[in-house]
């Protein structure tokens, strides 16, 4: 059960266009995405998501094979997918700053 021996990225469903970090991953660390070795452009924390491939603006993001929102802007493969570039198709997400909703709409 050595963490180091397990792949650091999880593909939860074959249709997904994001991957989930199984542990904290440092910037510059070599990871594998769909069989190709790839250098992490940014650090990613456990439980966070990154783009499995380049995603255009308005792309539906799939996790567990189900839609979890749409891209606000385009991102390249390996980029962190989170509040700054992904929005809900239902209700805006909230932050501790009550005046700021993270969706920009």
């Amino acid at each position, binding site marked *: 059960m050595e963490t180091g021996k397990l792949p650091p990225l*999880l593909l939860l469903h074959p249709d997904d266009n994001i991957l989930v970090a199984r542990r904290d991953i440092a910037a510059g660390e070599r990871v594998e995405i769909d069989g190709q070795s790839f250098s992490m452009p940014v650090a990613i924390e456990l*439980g966070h998501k990154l783009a499995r491939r380049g995603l255009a603006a308005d792309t539906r993001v799939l996790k567990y094979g189900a839609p979890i929102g749409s891209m606000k802007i385009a991102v390249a493969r390996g980029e962190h997918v989170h509040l700054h570039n992904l929005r809900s198709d*239902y*209700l805006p*997400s909230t932050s501790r700053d009550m005046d700021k909703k993270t969706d920009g709409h």
Partner: protein
Amino acid sequence: MNAVAKTNTSLKGFARRDGRKGIRNVVAVAYLVECAHHVSRLIVQKSGADDVHLIGFPGCYPNKYSLEMMQRLCTHPNVGAVLLVSLGCEGFNREQLRRTIAASGRPVDLLVIQQSGGTTRTLNAGLDIVRKMRAELAKQSAVPMGVDELIVGTVCGGSDGTSGITANPAVGRCFDWLIEAGAACIFEETGELIGCERIMASRAITPELGAEIEACVDKAANYYRIMGYGSFAPGNAEGGLTTLEEKSMGAYSKSGSSPISGLIKPGDVPPRGGLYLLDVVPDGEPRFGFPNISDNAEIVELIACGSHLILFTTGRGSVVGSAISPVIKVCANPDTYDRMADDMDVNAGRILRGAELDEVGREIYSLVESVASGELSKSEALGHQEFILTYKQFEPIGPACLPAA
């Protein structure tokens, strides 16, 4: 095929007159308005007993939902006796509550602070009553109880990006096996199932129930839209979750893969084994604020539906327990587990480090059996007995919500 070894171990229950059995024999001390809260708390604290629990309702204005909830909670199978504490002038229908408890065969007493002569006299009278109630309950011997007599609720709190991968699906496995063994299992928070409505509806045992499930998630989405915020906390985002529907998909996996047998509302007890969805979002226009202002409000509603124990999944790390029913903590995030192991019953985060989902599901199942046989959960042993009940408004469920009833 049940992956859980059939142990045929019997659980330890306390028989109640309505045919249900409890896994605890609690004396509940219930304040009927905030003004009676401190006196009630003193009675609980000074009783010095872990099985005397504090519950209550803070509002002075009467409310059908809170009366119904208090009646269900005070006649919950885990409750053996009840002491009601009233200030005297509040709107709560204390006589109806007392009659309901008495009709259930439980010892019940009522102290009205204004009539008893204030704090100290009420406290002393309360301590005397609680002592006698505990002595009475101590005479009751436990009876054998089957898994098919259990009702188990699940809730998540402090979810993060690991919850939907580890703890929630592991609870889902446990739910599938409990239901196979005849238990009733309840999942909830329709506001945290926004985005899952169609998948959920397809699991309903009738198309009419499926339509009711879709309608109740629509109601939740509309309610939260008017309130201005979905059920999504800053900590969810810090833990890697980005959108409400992403959180929903993760939360949804707690339900496992059994067919959905019914849609119930707070206080409705499942009529038989199976999987039930609890609709916690009030009916009508938003009136009293957010549906559930914190995790314990959801736990209390699961308990009012008869839940003997609660499976609580957390990624960021919650420490809460509950009055009346034990809470089992299933930790989704291995780093959180390492930080807060004293509060966690199960380390589901080890799935990320190579453990099998089924293995963790089996561990949860056997913990359900042992806690239902009297073993204390972590939060119970630490003395957590959180409780919160607020104003709400509900219409009764429609006939399509419980098919084959």
